[in-house]
């Protein structure tokens, strides 16, 4: 309990120092306005409705991109993990493709897709695809074969073995993949939104930079961070529910 308070000390001290240094003029207000001004900007833009609108735009891109990339990763990961022929058809190609840094594809994607919404959604989907595919595949492959055998001797059909053994067995690894996919998806979104947009948090930041509204640039960063944090918290809660059986293991 005391350590928890100690842990909070460092960020609080840093924020306080930032505020003071900005107020007394050591930090130029153009470069780094005090945190209180960032919060004030946040309040102002929330009141006029522009911040929620931008957050909504960014969130939509993230959700759609994650759904597409994650959905594809689930299908291909299951196909490659469960079937030998699927493994041969899919896995070597995916393993090669993941060596491409997907954010480096931006110029190519602009040529293919233009600079509109499809570009941003594709970037998020690419970012989310690989962690989910790789971890689902590994999760299925690492299931204890002896458990599958035991299920077989209990009279479970192939489909029932998938449902009762493979899916729950691969779940911890899949959750890890989704967690990494969230992080990669957010990162891809940030990059994608720097490319010509007329809405979203990235647009808000780029526009503010042109008018030297540094506090709004910082507000955009803060919003990305908060969204990332909230998605991680939600995922952890889902994980705790889905993997409650592991708590027994950890306790014993």
């Amino acid at each position: 309990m005391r350590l928890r308070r100690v842990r909070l000390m460092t960020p609080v001290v840093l924020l306080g120092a930032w505020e003071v240094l900005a107020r007394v003029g050591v930090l130029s207000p153009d470069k780094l306005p005090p945190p209180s001004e960032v919060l004030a900007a946040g309040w102002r833009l929330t009141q006029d409705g522009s911040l929620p609108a931008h957050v909504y735009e960014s969130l939509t891109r993230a959700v759609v991109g994650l759904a597409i990339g994650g959905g594809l990763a689930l299908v291909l990961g299951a196909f490659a993990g469960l079937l030998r022929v699927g493994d041969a058809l899919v896995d070597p190609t995916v393993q090669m493709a993941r060596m491409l840094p997907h954010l480096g594809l931006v110029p190519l994607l602009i040529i293919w897709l233009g600079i509109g919404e499809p570009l941003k959604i594709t970037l998020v989907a690419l970012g989310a695809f690989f962690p989910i595919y790789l971890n689902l595949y590994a999760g299925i492959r690492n299931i204890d074969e002896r458990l599958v055998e035991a299920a077989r001797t209990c009279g479970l059909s192939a489909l029932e073995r998938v449902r009762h053994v493979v899916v729950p067995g691969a779940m911890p690894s899949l959750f890890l993949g989704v967690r990494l996919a969230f992080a990669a998806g957010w990162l891809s979104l940030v990059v994608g939104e720097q490319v010509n947009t007329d809405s979203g948090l990235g647009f808000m930041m780029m526009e503010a930079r042109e008018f030297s509204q540094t506090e709004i640039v910082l507000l955009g960063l803060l919003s990305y961070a908060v969204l990332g944090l909230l998605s991680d918290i939600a995922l952890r809660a889902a994980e705790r529910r889905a993997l409650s059986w592991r708590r027994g293991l950890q306790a014993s």
Partner: protein
Amino acid sequence: MATRTAGVVAARDVRRSFGDTVVLDGIDLHLERGEVVALLGASGSGKSTLLRILAGLDHEATGEVEVSASSAVVFQEHRLLPWKRVAGNVALGVRGADVAGRVSAALGEVGLADRGRAWPGELSGGQSQRVAIARALVRRPELLLLDEPFGALDALNRLKMQRLFRELQSAHDFAALLVTHDVDEAVLLADRLLVLDGGRLVEEIVVPMPHPRAVDDPQFGALRRRLLALLNVPVEA
């Protein structure tokens, strides 16, 4: 061609090799209903391979194998699914009416009536193996295939489990093939002993002692010595 009664296991000329290594070299095996047979052999003698073939887990073997459709397997490790509660593990694949009632009856029989809601990770080794036995029992098997089921337990738990096995067998009268390397366990539990060596069944001994048996019975000692000699571990008389 069957002149014997239709038993629960009828295997003829079973062969299995891994590469150039012949593990089973023509095994004939017959188990009657309600008969407990212990299969003994040194490590690597192929006894577990034979059990896996009978359990339908090995498709590379040749020969004729007929096994009662009503069979269940208990492995050396409990092999419970960690993400299902104890009752869910026992109920795995059980079909028909009143599954829940049958599950709690089976758990009651192994002395774990109150542990149905527990996760496997919360159980001790002995308890886990009891659940594995309940998972087999709930299927009301005609044949139980056991692969060194008590081998991973400590000595005290093993004695308790051996007694439990006898009780369950006399209550349900299932046939059992017990793969073990524990000579005492074999003599204590089985009606008939088979010794596997070099891929063949080299000896068959019918155990004449009535149940319950005691290790300090003079007949027990004699049988034990004979088996150990067959397994190339001679002991002084």
